[in-house]
């Protein structure tokens, strides 16, 4: 090996090792588990069934409804969160008096534990909660929110965005601030209009930040779990039963680790496909 390659490889080795230990190895274990089933009729014995769990899931309408809920959640939540995070970051990038205070305030949802904020939101969206109290004062009809098939998924999207938007806006804000001021100054001298400035300068120069936010947000939302556990338990009528929650319920509660691992493996494939497409979209043109 070339001598000047030894140093970089040595430096990334610890990170690589941890990545293998905590990411790659569990995936292998999960894949292994997904090929077995537990038979409690035979005293909890593990039986090798090959693709049996996957065939079972393929024919299981509840699994497919959880895939649909997951995809629906992502199709709505990802663009919404990134769009709002972009706007928020653009606002927080303004040089106005007390901007640091505003930046701090918008970080509060990120700083609160997701468990705590989920419970607070659940209380606020309750039939006798704060939100319905405000609606009532405004003369509007009370809403069922988390109890309604039509509103529950939207409510979960809302709550996860309440946390997600300020979090992702941090990265976008960093992207904004990494664009050299001189570029804008030169553009101003050339008489560039405001939309041109956004589409020709800001967005292209932000590509790397945006690509990171898009991919990381997608992965986070595909694996979303805590708000569902605490807010809806997958209901009503499976409308918020995302795949990660279905896997948790089958594996951790009902002891069916084989099927649960099968769901996680299929989810992993789905994420790889989506993230792969997103990476293609953001690929550097040669």
């Amino acid at each position, binding site marked *: 090996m070339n001598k000047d390659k030894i140093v970089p490889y040595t430096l990334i080795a610890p990170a690589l090792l941890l990545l293998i230990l905590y990411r790659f190895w569990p995936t292998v274990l999960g894949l292994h588990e997904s090929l077995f089933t537990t038979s*409690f009729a035979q005293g*909890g014995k593990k039986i090798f069934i090959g693709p049996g769990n996957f065939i079972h899931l393929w024919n299981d309408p509840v699994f497919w409804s959880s895939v649909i809920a997951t995809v629906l959640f992502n199709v709505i939540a990802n663009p919404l969160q990134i769009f709002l995070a972009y706007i928020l970051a653009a606002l927080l990038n303004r040089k106005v008096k007390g901007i640091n205070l505003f930046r701090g305030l918008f970080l509060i949802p990120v700083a609160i534990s997701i468990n705590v904020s989920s419970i607070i939101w659940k209380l606020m969206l309750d039939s006798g909660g704060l939100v319905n109290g405000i609606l009532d004062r405004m003369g509007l009809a009370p809403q069922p929110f988390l109890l309604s098939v039509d509103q529950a998924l939207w409510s979960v999207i809302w709550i996860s965005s309440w946390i997600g938007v300020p979090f992702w806006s941090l990265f976008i804000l960093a992207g904004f601030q990494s664009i050299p001021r001189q570029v804008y100054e030169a553009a101003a001298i050339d008489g560039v209009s405001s939309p041109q400035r956004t589409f020709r300068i800001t967005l292209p120069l932000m590509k790397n930040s945006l690509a990171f936010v898009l991919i990381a947000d997608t992965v986070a939302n595909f694996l979303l779990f805590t708000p569902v556990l605490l807010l809806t338990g997958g209901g009503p009528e499976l409308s918020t039963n995302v795949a990660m929650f279905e896997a948790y319920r089958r594996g951790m*509660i009902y002891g069916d680790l084989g099927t649960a691992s099968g769901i996680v493996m299929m989810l992993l494939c789905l994420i790889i496909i989506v993230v792969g497409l997103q990476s293609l979209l953001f690929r550097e043109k040669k």
Partner: protein
Amino acid sequence: MKRILTLGIAAALLITALPLFANGAGSGESSEEKPVNLTWLILEFWNPDTVIAAYQELHPNVTIEAEKVGWGDFFQQNQIRLMSGEGDPDIVSIDLPLVASYGARGWLEPLDDVISSEDKSRWIPAAVESGTYNGALLAAPQHTSTQLLFVNKDLLESKGITPPGTDDRLTWEEVLAAAQAVSEGDIRGFNWEQNTAIYQLQPLPVSLGGKCIGEDGLTVEGFINSPEWIEAFTFYKDVYNKYGVAPKGDTPAADLFASGKLAMFVGGPWNIRRFAAEALLFDWTVSRHPYFEQGEIVTPTGSWHFGVNAAGEDKKAAAEFVRWLTAGEGAGLWWSKDSYDMPAQIALLESFNTIEDFQKPPLSFMKVAAAEARVNPVPRPVTPGFLEYDQLLQAAFSDIRNGADPKKTLDTAAGRISSEMNKYR
């Protein structure tokens, strides 16, 4: 000289070694004194202080730590911790229908070595039977249960309705009519205490002739979505939606009743001592569990048992505590100081007839409960997949209560439960 020296050394060795032998021989006794720590997962509304203090005084080497968990999380926590095989908690609180489920997974230590047949004769036979799995006693009965209709007499009388007496049994049709008459403003007519639990709702389909599970204890398709079930849960849906006599919010029925905002609810006898202690501001009574006019009379049954974690470190010590608590003097202490539930011990049930306080209302209602517990009690289905059965049905009942179509919802539930039952086949 040399010989004397050898003898001397041998003697010295013998003397120094003697305490070692003595220790070895006495190890059976000394293990009694070795400090033992036992953990115990319990429901948040139980108060274990009296029994723990009494037991620790009898056995100074034993320390019992009770950890309280809320009703909503209890079953999942219990299951996840037992599944981990870490041996915590040592003492397991088990709702009756889960005995088969935990037994099939090998999580419970048989208690027959510690609990004698004489001990078993102190409990009501049905409770012993349901704590037994594959011929071994896995769970010692502590409570039994039944359900009564609690009635706010003042509210009913204000609408010209004669409240039922303690030995009357209303039909569901009569309960609904009375509930409709009193429902106005923020007052509602009726609710179930555990309004999405199979324990509480099972009498509805069973009263109409429905069955809860197949003979194999695994088949649900064609049972929980049978015409009887659909009819029963259409009634249930209508109570909340079409007639609007039942509150949909999460406020517990017993709390609403105690505040005078709920005219009737079907609930457990544990409420009797609670309401007596709170001295409610209105006149109230209990009556027998309702039934459908054209149906059979059936009542819910079964309650909490205690068992020993098979993965625990001090299984014998844990089993001895369970014996003392359920069949020994702990049972009386627990019942009189710590819990409002119906005891599973025959002597305690018989004491209802002699305890002076129990001879006049409202505490005399405990005697009504003891009598009702013997009226056609229908246990919950015996299946190793009870947790799945219970929780997936709970989700279905909750959806129906919110207005989902009963047939479609029960069909989906049957599919989901069937899929989970495969692992027991």
